[in-house]
């Protein structure tokens, strides 16, 4: 079976700190990482391949430096990697990104299942996965926490919801987005890293993937960012002193004054 995993390179947020004075992000020395949710997608692709046989192709849209994210996926064991990159993609919103990735997946060829992380940790939209499915005209299930069964024509998954989970079955080809609970991603092996270093990454631009120029980048993006600002910092907290009983009483008093209990 052919599995395609979509990944995004994002700033490594573990190192994101907020400057308490200006309340802005301190980004100096922040390295780029594979979006954490996408590592679960990679792992699931690899597990499915180990179970079913076949191939895992990883694809990313981004600037040339996103190549390092793809190499990381290769070092975990993905078979092939594709980077869709073109200055014409600048300013893409989720719709243009979904379209572009769908075009890239179209060029990869036949596939059974596309796997995405539930969302990227920089944009937090969770819109690109279902958007790709719509553009590819295939069914999709989001927030998958377990693949119960998969065979040549069908997949049965558990989808995490607010009050529990749903068991859903759908025909292939299809797309899923996965949550953290689905697996524990492996670390790259030494052999994998050696192989990834030498591996050739396919680099495709806008004309390679035969996309319509009006549907990519900023012209293909119906939404625009008007303004970016940092939220006002939370007001400094008040420490409640005393022994535990006194602290508890003070807190209850405060909560009652605020009319929240």
């Amino acid at each position, binding site marked *: 079976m052919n599995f395609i995993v979509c990944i995004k390179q994002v700033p490594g947020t573990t190192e994101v700190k907020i400057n308490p004075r200006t309340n802005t992000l301190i980004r100096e020395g922040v390295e780029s990482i594979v979006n954490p949710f996408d590592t679960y997608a990679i792992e699931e692709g690899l597990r499915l391949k180990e179970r079913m046989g076949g191939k895992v192709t990883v694809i990313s849209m981004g600037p040339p*430096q996103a190549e390092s994210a793809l190499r990381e996926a290769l070092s975990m064991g993905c078979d092939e990697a594709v980077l869709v990159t073109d200055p014409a993609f600048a300013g893409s919103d989720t*719709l243009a990104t979904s379209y572009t990735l769908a075009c890239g997946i179209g060029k990869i060829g036949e596939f059974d299942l596309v796997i995405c992380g539930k969302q990227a940790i920089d944009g937090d939209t969770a819109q690109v996965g279902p958007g790709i499915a719509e553009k590819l005209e295939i069914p999709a299930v989001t927030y998958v926490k377990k693949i119960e069964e998969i065979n040549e024509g069908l997949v049965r998954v558990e989808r995490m919801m607010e009050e529990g989970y749903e068991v859903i079955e759908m025909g292939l080809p299809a797309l899923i987005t996965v949550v953290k609970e689905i697996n524990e991603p492996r670390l790259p092996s030494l052999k994998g890293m050696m192989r990834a270093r030498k591996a050739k990454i396919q680099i495709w631009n806008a004309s390679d993937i035969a996309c319509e120029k009006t549907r990519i980048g900023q012209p293909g993006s119906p939404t625009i960012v008007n303004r970016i600002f940092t939220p006002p910092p939370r007001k400094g907290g008040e420490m409640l002193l005393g022994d535990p009983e006194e602290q508890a009483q003070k807190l209850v008093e405060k909560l009652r004054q605020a009319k929240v209990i």
Partner: protein
Amino acid sequence: MGIEIIEDKCSGCSLCVKYCPFGLIKIVSREEVGRPHPKYKKIAVIGQGCNLCGACLEPCSFQAILIEREEAKPLADISQYKGVWVFAEQKKGEIQGVVYELIGEGRKLADQLGEKLSCVLLGEGMDEKAKELIAYGADRVYQIEGSILREFQDDPYTDVLTDLIEKEKPEIVLMGATAIGRSFASRVAARLGTGLTADCTELAIDLEKRQLLQTRPAFGGNIMATITTPHSRPQMATVRHKVFKKAIRQGNHQGDVVKESVEGKHLSLRTKLLNMVEDITQTVKLADADIIVSGGRGLGGPENFHIIEALARTLGGAVGASRAAVDAGWMPYSHQVGQTGRTVCPKIYIACGISGAIQHLVGMQSSEIIVAINKDPNAPIFKVATYGIEGDLFQVVPALTKTLKEVLG
């Protein structure tokens, strides 16, 4: 189209560098890049990957950054789109809480625009609920009935809603940023080719341009972005729970119900919902909870979570957990609050024995009141806490439960 550093103006001061959310701006020597200047020795350069977000414009004191956006041709028929719609998500025939919040906010937007507020209700046997939506302030309810619509499924729901939007042409469509809403809205927007903004926490109208100003957190809430959909309609947004006030039920509000049936119509259905399994460990849903009591590493083990549960029960709240507690296997993943878990914004969030790593903070820092109970006075959680209690949670939490029981009866 694109972003440009105006050579004459840039002093290479590096102010913009730290404002770029993507870390793409570098300061280089002008000599090296062959752009000499009589006064300035350095210049900013912007690496590939810029999405023209504009965060760098404001901090630049020299007006040396220029962003040009290609003005898309305004679509001729944009003015045909009128009115505000709310998708009335139902589960097992019950309207979800966030819908009433959307009606409250949608009512304001519709009034500002001088247009109608409508709800779209898909399901089976929903007559009574349609009337309820009107009582809460909808001017019209599109009630689409059919056995295939009884539970949410992407395909038939997408078919029905896109058809209805194409026919009736609303200018704004709002949905709850629920598990269903976030995937469903994306499908619909992609099929219509219109703009969608995820997980908004603030909505406003620019009356002059007749545009919806959609504000949402990004980077885990560390920055806010205001997004518009200038040239396509409808303007679609998913909206976070608990951000807007619920509409108030007014028995005398008048409205009409446009009822249609899809029985016999061809709708696609490529997924099959086999079963719904309720999470028995969640007596109160995290997403809906007004009060959340969360436990972290400080609890020391799963056997101690009962004190968190007792406090939550006394307050009628939900139980949350930090990633550390979930990874250690003390609580199921469905309770995890934070970047890789759920984002919550209750009225009261009580963090017990949670140090407050940034990944946890981004999942709860928009809560109205944050209470932190921790024995380490330097724990970062105290920096975001409205009320901080330095102390042993094994003493403070039971004392709090006891006091609350006395006060609340």
